[in-house]
């Protein structure tokens, strides 16, 4: 009788020991390895048709799809400077927003609470609430994106959006032409801003003023 119960127990013990040996998948992941960089674009956009850009002077903090506040912390400044530098390296000229820029550039920090996720589709649906088209001098216009992704943001993320202001008047819409999203550990950091923005641009070689 002892043998009858002992043998299956031995098999179960073997299995339990084996399952306990599972390698923890993220043990080897460094802080940098946790970061993911997602870019997307309007495939019909001709990026060399844009020559100038203007960038927002603050960063919108979005919590659960709602604008929480616009801030300009040292970290926000670092991200704005990094994006501006990358665009100028790609041949675009920085102008004031009153000087009819071809591209509008906005930066957003996205957070969630413990009970909600921020859907990137909703993020674009609510874009009007973060950056009123009035900001760009086009009151009453609506935003439009043809390529919204399917990402959900379950913690912090930095989103950078390029919108087409050059053609806004002709279409009565402000069309999104490029988006970059950064997620992972320690992404919202003054010291990391430049490298993270550079990574987004590195995987977007088409983003340049001159062919």
């Amino acid at each position, binding site marked *: 009788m002892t043998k009858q119960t002992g043998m299956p127990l031995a098999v179960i013990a073997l*299995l339990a020991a084996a399952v306990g040996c599972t390698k923890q*998948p993220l043990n080897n992941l460094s802080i940098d390895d946790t970061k993911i960089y997602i870019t*997307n674009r309007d495939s019909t956009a001709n990026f060399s048709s844009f020559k100038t850009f203007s960038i927002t002077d603050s960063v919108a903090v979005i919590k659960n799809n709602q604008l929480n506040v616009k801030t300009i912390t040292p970290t926000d400044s670092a991200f704005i400077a990094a994006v501006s530098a990358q665009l100028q390296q790609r041949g675009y000229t920085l102008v004031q927003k009153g000087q009819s820029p071809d591209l509008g550039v906005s930066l957003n920090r996205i957070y969630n609470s413990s009970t909600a996720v921020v859907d990137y589709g909703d993020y674009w649906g609510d874009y009007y609430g973060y950056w009123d088209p009035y900001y760009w001098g086009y009151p009453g216009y609506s935003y439009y994106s043809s*390529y919204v992704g399917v990402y959900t943001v379950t913690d912090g993320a930095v989103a950078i959006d390029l919108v087409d202001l050059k053609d806004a008047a002709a279409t009565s819409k402000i069309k999104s032409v490029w988006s970059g999203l950064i997620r992972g550990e320690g992404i919202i950091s003054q010291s990391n801003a430049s490298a993270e923005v550079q990574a987004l641009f590195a995987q977007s070689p088409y983003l340049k003023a001159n062919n």
Partner: protein
Amino acid sequence: MYALVACLAVNSAYAQQDGVLKLRLDYAPGIPLGSFKTDVVNQTAWRGYSGDLMYYINDRWAVGGATGFHDFYQQYPRQVYKGADGSDVSAVLTNSIQTVPILAKGQFSFVGGTHTVKPYVALGVGGNFITYRQFVGEYDSGKDAFGFAASPELGVNIAFGPWPSSAGINIGAAYNYMPFNYAGINNLNNLAVKLGVNIPFR
């Protein structure tokens, strides 16, 4: 489930008085094959174990139940992947897969009698508990599934005394056929190389 299979095997074994019941335990690293190797994990699962509880009906045939465990893992360095929506995603990708098959198993020895060296062929057929996780950076997605599994096997039992009542060692190789359809993956087929012991119970 494990207990059920094991108990069935034990009860079946003890219902007959002529044969011998043997427990076999193997270290069994798994080598990914085919599209599983090229698309998901190309590293050998050194965390691999298998075991069976077989009732040796006579000098050639045995029937029973088998199970096992493989932990497949691979981390790919950062590169840019194309997302389903056309996006470009730069990430370190980690795939983690565990399989636990539960099989009914039959075994035939090519050599009869009480020879101590018994080459054999075996076939296990049953189900497979699968845990699949893919981490994009630290963000995971995946699927837990129960699928089909079949495991043809070739090997040799080497007994320390008269077969089958003596303990011995096993050397073998099993082709683990494991269909699994998810996110472009078709299967988790692998080759398990087995080395272990078998212990008679009566």
